[in-house]
């Protein structure tokens, strides 16, 4: 099931992360850095990590993979990010379900939506991460444990 339409940017709810930011590069370059392994390897993940280039896998189609491993710069621990793309609109919109794996188990399990806005020499990205209102589930026991595992992983990374 894949509805290949670009949704309107949603209203922000308290459980979502919402970020918009302009980049000094044309849209085809920014798109490349999101969708080509050589590009992705250069930036994805917090500053204390890097991407293992050998683990990057991008299949730019609905149902395709968008995978990579983040590696902790200090400890070398791998944090795999595994995603399934749901909507791919070239130079316009990407949507995927993201699963993170850590030594503590699977974390994240969120929907990531990224809009690309063409402004000539500049590109604006609007990113929304979280369950949309329709998909929103109350914090179940499982939801809490996921959050704790995520906190554990981040605390472990920061302490390393």
């Amino acid at each position, binding site marked *: 099931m894949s509805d290949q339409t670009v949704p309107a940017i949603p209203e922000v709810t308290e459980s979502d992360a919402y970020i918009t930011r302009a980049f*000094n*590069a044309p849209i085809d370059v920014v798109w490349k850095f999101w969708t080509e392994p050589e590009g992705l390897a250069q930036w994805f993940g917090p500053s204390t990590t890097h991407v293992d280039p050998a683990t990057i896998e991008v299949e730019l189609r609905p149902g395709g993979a968008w995978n990579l491993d983040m590696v902790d710069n200090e400890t070398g621990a791998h944090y795999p990010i595994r995603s399934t793309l749901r909507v791919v609109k070239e130079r316009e919109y990407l949507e995927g379900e993201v699963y993170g794996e850590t030594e503590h188990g699977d974390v994240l399990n969120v929907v990531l939506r990224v809009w690309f806005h063409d402004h000539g020499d500049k590109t604006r990205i609007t990113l929304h991460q979280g369950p949309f209102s329709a998909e929103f589930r*109350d914090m179940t026991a499982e939801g809490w444990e996921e959050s704790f595992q995520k906190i554990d992983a981040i605390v472990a990374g920061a302490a390393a």
Partner: protein
Amino acid sequence: MFTREAPAEDPLTLVFSALADPTRRAILVRLTQGDASVSELAGPFEMSQPAVSKHLRVLEKAGLISRSRVATSRFSHLEPRPLKEATRWMDKQFWNESFDRLDAALAGYLENQARNAQEEEEKENDQ
């Protein structure tokens, strides 16, 4: 009046220091099953009730639980909002740091592209 430094009582700081302790995280996970009294919480942790009470005070101060009294027992109740706010904050940190790196990568790429274009031009002029 306005300092850049976060005050010690900053809500997010309270939440993260409360969550930094594995026993307190385990107490929260237990409370996802339903409200519990101090003695019910002390049981699985092999801890004295005063020790559990101390942890509960930290959790309460962070807003992660609320407590009510039924007869002689105090029951703890999970409050999900601060944890949601903490995870949202972490998600934003993740992307802001990634985007800083993307910024730098894009700048490097465009610089390289411009240099290559210039070299091409110089080569053509030489011919």
